[in-house]
């Protein structure tokens, strides 16, 4: 027992230190949950509940983010197909952010230093978002949402 106690105290202290490192991910998770609650209760699929995207309003073209609130709302309803119809990039981003968040928590928990994704991945993300922006404004790509009036 006398041998086990210092070891146990060490483990408890180590876990405490590790938990204190997780303040930022906890804050991010709280912010994401708060966003989900707001967008679930204050329905963006009803016109007038949120301001229109200024880029869409000024230019008549959808930006890469257009439909994000409505897609988020559909996700909180469990309607993935509806979410994809408003903005598939939003659904992809939610999945991506989930993966990034888990990796972030794991890195902090293990006390490892930050690493960067390989350059092809970062470049691919740039190409993906710009291609999505252009394509969703072209005829024939209406499925990239949001529905045009």
């Amino acid at each position: 027992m006398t041998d086990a106690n210092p070891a146990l105290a060490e483990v408890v202290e180590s876990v405490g230190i590790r938990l204190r490192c997780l303040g930022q991910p906890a804050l991010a998770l709280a912010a994401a949950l708060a966003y989900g609650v707001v967008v679930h209760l204050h329905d963006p699929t009803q016109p007038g509940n949120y301001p229109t995207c200024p880029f869409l309003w000024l230019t008549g073209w959808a930006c890469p983010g257009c439909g994000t609130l409505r897609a988020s709302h559909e996700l909180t309803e469990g309607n993935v197909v509806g979410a994809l119809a408003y903005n598939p990039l939003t659904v992809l981003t939610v999945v991506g952010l989930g993966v990034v968040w888990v990796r972030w928590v794991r890195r902090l928990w293990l006390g490892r230093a930050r690493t960067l994704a390989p350059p092809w991945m970062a470049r691919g993300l740039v190409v993906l978002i710009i291609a999505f922006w252009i394509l969703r404004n072209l005829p024939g790509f209406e499925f990239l949402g949001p529905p045009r009036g």
Partner: protein
Amino acid sequence: MSEYGTTPPPGGMTVPPDNKMVWSVLVTLFCCLPFGIVAIIKSSEVNNKWAAGDVAGANASAAEASKWIKWSVITGIVGVVLAIIAYVLFFAALFAASSSSSSGM
């Protein structure tokens, strides 16, 4: 730092700068402005330059990404505030028009 060439310098500089990619993507989705695209490009430059051993360049791109994220957030907030003001003014004008036309009887 360019005298280090293509190899990262030894010691404490082996941890890459934060490329802020998550913030860049979030402002692109939520602030609906081309500034977000610039931020994403700058964030991705951090990965490219770091992988090429360009520590100073990676840090500079990270700072640029932060700058564009900041401007995207600021213009996004200003845009929302202006939209709300325009909305209120529109209904105020509508109300004024309807009340003046009825008083004009």
